[in-house]
């Protein structure tokens, strides 16, 4: 039974990683052709750093991801605290508001925002589709993830600790930052990380909201998949994959450490 499950897991992981291996291998392929192997080369990595289109899109992607993660984490954490202290109908209303972008098909979310941005731009000349609209769209679909990550941590927290801090003379603000925030911090961090990832990888919503001036990596890659994709993109994604791998290993190590700490505390 054990070997059977090992074989099964192996098959699934092969399925998950097959295209990734292909991408990484082709980033070293000395032929533009997708199928033939033309020998080992590092040329695509060199070309990558002179390909302005890709570098520009990378810059846009990173800027958007960082800004969207920060802003959505701030708004989302505040929202979670607020919603946590609500009751009844208001709370349910807020929760369903939070659920809209989560349950809506992405394409509908993207289109609905595009229609609104265009309407605003046509009426006022403000918010020309571009960086700003892309950022707003990303913040909007990131917020729910943050809220959903922070909420359970608030639920787990001992309510009396906040009251105790108030009783001991803390201002509500100080009590929040000194008592509540450290308790919910793991949720905030995972929320921020998740927002960052979601923003980094988003295509559908960006596709409809990037205008003519701010294309992120996904949109650029999409315009490339219509013609032969240049292998520079494979090189870039290999680099990104490598850095994410390192990042995840660090996060993982940190989580394992936290786990041990928790055990000690118990």
């Amino acid at each position: 039974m054990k070997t059977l499950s090992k074989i099964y897991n192996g098959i699934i992981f092969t399925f998950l990683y097959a295209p990734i291996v292909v991408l990484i291998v082709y980033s070293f392929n000395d032929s533009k052709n997708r199928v033939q192997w033309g020998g080992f080369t590092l040329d695509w990595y060199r070309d990558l750093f002179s390909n302005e289109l890709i570098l520009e899109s990378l810059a846009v992607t990173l800027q958007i991801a960082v800004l969207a993660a920060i802003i959505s984490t701030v708004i989302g954490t505040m929202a979670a605290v607020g919603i946590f202290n609500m009751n009844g109908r208001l709370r349910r209303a807020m929760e369903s508001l939070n659920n809209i972008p989560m349950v809506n098909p992405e394409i509908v979310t993207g289109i609905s925002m595009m229609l609104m941005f265009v309407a605003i731009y046509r009426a006022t000349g403000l918010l020309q589709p571009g960086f700003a609209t892309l950022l707003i769209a990303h913040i909007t679909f990131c917020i729910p993830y943050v809220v959903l990550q922070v909420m359970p941590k608030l639920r787990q927290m001992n309510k009396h600790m906040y009251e105790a801090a108030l009783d001991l003379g803390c201002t509500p603000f100080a009590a929040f930052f000194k008592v509540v925030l450290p308790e919910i911090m793991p949720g905030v961090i995972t929320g921020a990380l998740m927002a960052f990832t979601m923003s980094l990888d988003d295509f559908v919503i960006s596709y409809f909201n990037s205008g003519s001036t701010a294309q992120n990596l996904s949109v650029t890659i999409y315009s490339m998949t219509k013609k032969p994709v240049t292998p520079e993109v494979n090189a870039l994604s290999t680099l990104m994959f490598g850095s994410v791998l390192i990042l995840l290993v660090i996060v993982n190590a940190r989580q394992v450490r936290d786990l041990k700490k928790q055990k000690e505390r118990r």
Partner: protein
Amino acid sequence: MKKRLSAAPFAVWMGIFTVVPMAIVLWFAFTDENGAFTLRNIAEIWQYSGTYVDSIWMGALATVICLVLAYPLALSIARKAEHVQRTMVMIVMLPMWMNFLLRTYAWMSLLEENGLINHLLGQIGLHWSIINTDAAVVLGMVYNFLPFMILPLYSVMAKMDNRVIEAAQDLGSNNWQILRRVILPLSAPGIVSGVTMVFVPAVSTFVISKLLGGSKYMMIGDVIESMFMGDGCNYNVGAALSLVLMVLMLICMSLMRRVDNGEDELGGMMA
């Protein structure tokens, strides 16, 4: 009292950027090019009813395959030691960090007539014509959304109390009975959120059908996309199509939710 106010920026933001856009979609769906009220767009959708059915069917197929593939994997992860669990979850999540368009594009080079898989199969005298068919599209969906099925399943299973299973064993249940009577009911919330997270994006995709399906059969996402970005060029019909898609998805979802009244397990996804 004050604390509730901290949700104000959220309420304002989400109100402006999700509720108002939905209202605009609604408005577009029920007006013509000149802004006058009309039901023509909704009527015009009738001709796409077959496409809705096809898309929902293919999405459902991909969801079921995902569930069948993910369930044993999630179960085996959940029953490992805690640090092994963490590593395996990381291995499941890692592919999601590579651009999804590129991964789908890589599948194209794997599946093509002269692609890698056919090169290998050719060695033993076989050939698999799958590229640019519905099967390739379903495969692409399963591939892209499988982690969204594994993770919620895993997070529910990891929380399962082992003592319940032991109790069942003590009471003389065999493995099959334990799976059916104990594990399956306990993992129901995970199944619900996994199915939701796979089904909705699978039904509404427009990229996978383009890259792996050779744009041969439009899915409903393709039709909507073409109304806004392609040959179709009709926002009113496009908005009406989106509206109907949204309503259909909400119906499917509430049917799912009825199966399980538990809380949303999404929160446990990254834990």
